[in-house]
């Protein structure tokens, strides 16, 4: 059969190297290259990228050098130390504990939970949506009933109940509990795009080319909705920082001896703190706002990079 093709084409094995090299010269740039070009074309996003990545690395590494139990010990002498006093660059709270150190460890905890939650819930939601959307019919019907049931549950109340009845929970169990309730939105979004995408002829063409259905889902359809996935995931990450912080703020997140951005903002519950001792809660609040803004900038660039028609960076 190979001869059959050779007979109808002037190309033979001898030309293979030369033609491959010629084709390589004309090749379109790789995805990583395209994303990098997009960042370079958008100054605010580039700065955001450095800020977010730099900050996350800093708190992850920095927190390793901080002895948390010791840091969280009450120290009456340093009660509400003002910022920029000796040993307290950002001041101290009612327990005389350093705000700066709490901020580092708290950020590590909050961001860690948000990252874990985003990875688990987005992965699950994406798979659920892809499978449900591709295999229409009974599979889809069943999976959508599970989705409906989960949406029916009052989420915040369920989390509070679970957190209350589980005796010893930590960051990991908390992340897992959150994950149970945070994949649904993603799954619905992904499913609707998958429905549209799997109706396109390239999915049919892959099937007649003998490609296995699972491979079509994850290797053909998923890359085509990657811009949606990227945007949804970055936005979920920003939102998920709020999930843990919100619950900790209410007192149902991490225990109070474990610092988090939420427990720090909870300092603002006290009217005195709001006006007089602003340094106890303002840094954490500012940090959340800046992080969320920067992340959404990054998300926009990633979306542009994934969507050829919106690119601003020069590619050739």
């Amino acid at each position, binding site marked *: *059969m*190979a001869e*059959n*093709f*050779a*007979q*109808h*084409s*002037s*190309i*033979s*094995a001898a*030309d*293979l190297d030369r*033609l*491959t090299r*010629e*084709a*390589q*010269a*004309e*090749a*379109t740039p790789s995805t990583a290259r395209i994303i990098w070009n997009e960042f370079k074309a958008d100054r605010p996003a580039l700065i955001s990228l450095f800020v977010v990545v730099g900050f996350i690395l800093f708190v992850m590494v920095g927190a390793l050098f901080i002895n948390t139990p010791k840091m969280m010990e009450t120290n009456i002498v340093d009660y509400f130390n003002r910022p920029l006093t000796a040993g307290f660059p950002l001041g101290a709270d009612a327990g005389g504990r350093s705000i700066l150190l709490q901020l580092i460890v708290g950020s590590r905890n909050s961001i860690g939970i948000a990252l874990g939650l985003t990875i688990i819930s987005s992965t699950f939601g994406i798979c659920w949506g892809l499978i449900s959307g591709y295999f229409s019919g009974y599979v889809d019907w069943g999976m959508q009933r599970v989705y409906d049931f989960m949406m029916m549950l009052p989420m915040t109340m369920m989390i509070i109940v679970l957190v209350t009845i589980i005796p010893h929970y930590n960051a990991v169990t908390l992340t897992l509990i959150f994950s149970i309730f945070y994949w649904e939105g993603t799954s619905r979004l992904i499913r609707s795009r998958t429905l549209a995408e799997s109706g*396109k*002829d*390239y999915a*049919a*063409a*892959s*099937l*007649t*080319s*003998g*490609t296995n259905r699972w491979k079509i889902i994850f290797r*053909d359809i998923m*890359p*085509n909705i*990657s811009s949606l996935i990227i945007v949804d995931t970055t936005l979920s990450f920003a939102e998920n920082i709020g999930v843990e912080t919100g619950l900790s703020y209410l007192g149902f997140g991490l225990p109070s001896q474990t610092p988090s951005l939420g427990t720090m903002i909870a300092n603002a519950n006290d009217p005195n703190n709001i006006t007089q001792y602003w340094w106890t809660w303002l840094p954490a609040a500012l940090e959340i706002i800046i992080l969320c803004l920067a992340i959404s900038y990054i998300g926009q660039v990633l979306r542009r990079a994934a969507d*050829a028609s919106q690119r601003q960076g020069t590619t050739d």
Partner: protein
Amino acid sequence: MSLIEIKDLKVHYPIRSGFWNRVTDSVKAVDGITFNIEAGETYGLVGESGSGKSTTGKSVVGLEKVTSGSILYQGKDITQRRNRQLLDYNRDVQMIFQDSLSSLNPRKRIEDIIAEPLRNFEHLTKDQEKLRVLQLLDIVGLDADALYKYPHQFSGGQRQRIGVARAVATNPKLIIADEPVSALDLSVQAQVLNFMKKIQRGFGISYLFISHDLGVVRHMCTNIAIMNRGRLVEVGTRDDIYNHPLHIYTKRLLAAIPDVNVSERAAHRAMRQRVEQIYQSQQHDYYDESGEAYPLVQVSPTHSVALPPKLAQQLLVQESEAQD
């Protein structure tokens, strides 16, 4: 024995409605059609849009779940998925899609698109595979620099030729071409059709050529089936259909072929209006009470038409008198 035998094929889509989401009705996209495709021939399937041509084509490549009927290939009914797998069916039967852009994955390079059937059905080394892809590109008249490009970097005609290259990759016996040139400019249409013909001659491939335009089909097909509302209304050789059409629907399709001759445009238009008028007034003779086409009756060894036998005979006599 024919290459492929389609017997009383039906594809009905259920319409669900109501609180319980129960099946209340169905769309009869394909409603009992029978025809055979011989090795090496191009079989035309023609009808207006919505008549069920694509559904038929998709059933033949195994993309559609059929309601009833059978499609025999090498003596096996390939409407069953098991039989398709047993035969490596899609190695032998491939498809070219109407919309060249949506049929090529925008995320894949041309090399990966064309090599996809090769990777699944033939186990070639990396070099053999690349060589085959380059040869296929050459056969459809594209340069090697297409290899690492993406579909959106090509024109419609080039993309459709990439689709042809992918369909030919495993040297299949039958290719379903679902309106392969309908989306293309007139000048590009001829080019793509010529590549398809060249490939047919070189590789001995059969085509099931689907089109809504009898003009395009004329240069491609030896046998033609006219499809209307899920049924075949007339089947015959090229001569039967173009020179001795019996069913009013066929006549209407013939009248709808665009006229390239500018000077006779007015005459052509008048003729088209006349046919349309006859169609409107005599329609009820050609379809039964529920508006469906009659079963086919044979009027010559090659020619069948979906009419009550008496009417068919009468028309045949009229037709042969008119010829004299």
